[in-house]
């Protein structure tokens, strides 16, 4: 994108010449500046600060046993009501590492190092309830970040397959619950354009949609690339601010990062109910309420050649991407774990936040190879897709 943004375009051909005219165009045009402002404002509004979860801490009859829970009304708005409080953390012995909670084995993954000093305030107190307020004031926000679904809800986000990006947009406010720090998911939401399209149609103009129009409709690649690069720079700057802010509060920053990772894996169930109902209906159009029962749409899917070809291509790309990521990720994890990677914790933060700003070279690589093979005639399979991107 950076290279393209520094190029000229004429008659559909890119001339690789160094130029900044597209950036000048962007920053001197009131329309695009307004769109940029709307993008930041809309994302900021979407990730407004939510009230801190209403937590309670109670001591069980056993010695040094603490359970923290969150009231259901402060959990994710799309999460199905369960009628009981969600356990966040259970410490059988606050002086030691948290043990997995029986109903939610992952709950105890909360950063015990951050929680332990506060929990130790309760330890040995003959009237532990009297000491709960400081505990409640110090720990709950971290616990709120750490609260997440049990393992069976921690699957990779398959909902994104049907409404790309929508569920991740839904999941974003979960990570934004922390009232004291910059919501990490802000970075991802800024660059999303699928959600604005699906929610607001093309009437909602945000910067990612401008990139979409410039690249895929207007075919002004350099200007679209310049817009994308501006977006990327904003994301990187915000990441720097985030690392700076959280780095200044080192004891808890890992909790936020881990919670952010879990928010990535969060799978709100509510939208699936609608989708599950819609795929089984007999009507000819999509309706929000189910109309009858039919499996003909599955048959339609399997009979359409373009869908089958797209499915095969996606699988092929995903396999090559997974292989490349596995090799690179494993090679990168070794020095990170064995201490040969020196630094004040920045590599780990960058690693945790990397999905936000980084482009996708591993996926782009196989795609580029497939395109090259197609152009070279080494792949004869042609798609008959009616799409015209």
């Amino acid at each position, binding site marked *: 994108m950076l290279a393209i943004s520094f190029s000229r375009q004429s008659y559909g051909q890119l001339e690789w010449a160094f130029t900044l005219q597209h950036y000048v165009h962007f920053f001197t045009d009131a329309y695009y500046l307004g769109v940029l402002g709307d993008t930041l404002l809309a994302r900021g509004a979407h990730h407004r600060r939510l009230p801190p979860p209403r937590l309670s801490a109670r001591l069980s009859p056993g010695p040094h046993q603490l359970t923290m829970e969150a009231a259901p009304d402060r959990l994710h708005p799309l999460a199905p009501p369960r009628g009981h409080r969600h356990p966040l953390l259970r410490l059988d012995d606050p002086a030691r590492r948290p043990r997995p909670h029986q109903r939610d*084995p*992952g709950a105890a*993954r909360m950063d015990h190092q951050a929680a332990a000093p506060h929990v130790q305030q309760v330890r040995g107190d003959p009237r532990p309830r009297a000491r709960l307020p400081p505990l409640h004031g110090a720990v709950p926000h971290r616990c709120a970040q750490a609260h997440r679904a049990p*393992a*069976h809800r921690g*699957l*990779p*986000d*398959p*909902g994104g*397959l*049907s409404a*790309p990006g929508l569920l991740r947009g839904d999941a974003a406010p979960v990570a934004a619950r922390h009232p004291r720090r910059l919501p990490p998911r802000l970075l991802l939401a800024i*660059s*999303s354009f*699928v959600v604005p399209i699906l929610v607001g149609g093309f009437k909602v103009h945000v910067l990612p949609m401008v990139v979409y129009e410039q690249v*895929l409709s207007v075919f002004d690649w350099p200007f679209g690339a310049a817009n994308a690069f501006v977006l990327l720079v904003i994301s990187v700057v915000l990441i720097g601010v985030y690392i700076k802010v959280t780095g200044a509060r080192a004891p808890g920053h890992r909790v936020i990062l881990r919670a952010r990772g879990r928010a990535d894996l969060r799978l709100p169930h509510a939208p699936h109910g609608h*989708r599950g109902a*819609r*795929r089984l209906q007999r*009507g000819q159009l*999509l309706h929000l309420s189910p109309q009858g029962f039919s499996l003909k*749409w*599955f048959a*339609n*899917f399997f009979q359409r050649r*373009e*869908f089958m*070809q*797209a499915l095969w*291509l*996606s*699988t092929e*790309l*995903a396999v090559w*991407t*997974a292989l490349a*990521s*596995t090799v*690179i*990720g*494993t090679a*990168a*994890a070794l020095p*990170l*774990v064995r201490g040969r990677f020196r630094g004040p914790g920045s590599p780990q933060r960058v*690693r*945790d936040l*990397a*999905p936000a700003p980084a482009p996708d070279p591993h*996926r*782009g690589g196989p*795609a*580029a190879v497939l395109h090259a093979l*197609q152009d070279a005639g080494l792949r004869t399979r042609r*798609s008959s*897709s*009616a*799409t015209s*991107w």
Partner: protein
Amino acid sequence: MTTPYVIRTVTATLTHFDIALEEAAQSLGAHPVRAFFEVTLGVIKPGVVAGAIFALAISFDNFTLSLFLTSSKLTPLPIELFAYLKYSFDPTAAAVSAFAIGVALVLVLGIARFMGLEEFTGF
């Protein structure tokens, strides 16, 4: 975009790996590379496989990058689905999504069955 997920899962398993095992293999004459592949990799295999599956799932449903890398000749499933939704409003798209969700669930449940979900998630 998918590499951090691999790093995360592999790091989780590597943290609990006793490096003395690898050193023992080397002290018995194994080359470091062979010790890594036969000892270390065997122990951290659940994390590596888990990361690969995460990468597979995330890559499979990636939309944004696919949109910019696709062409009229090569159209991944998310783009095909999105294009279909732009001009058609029948529930075929929902059926496609249900199929994809089913594939992902089968994948993860298979991992849970044969490797254990605790190993898989690193919890």
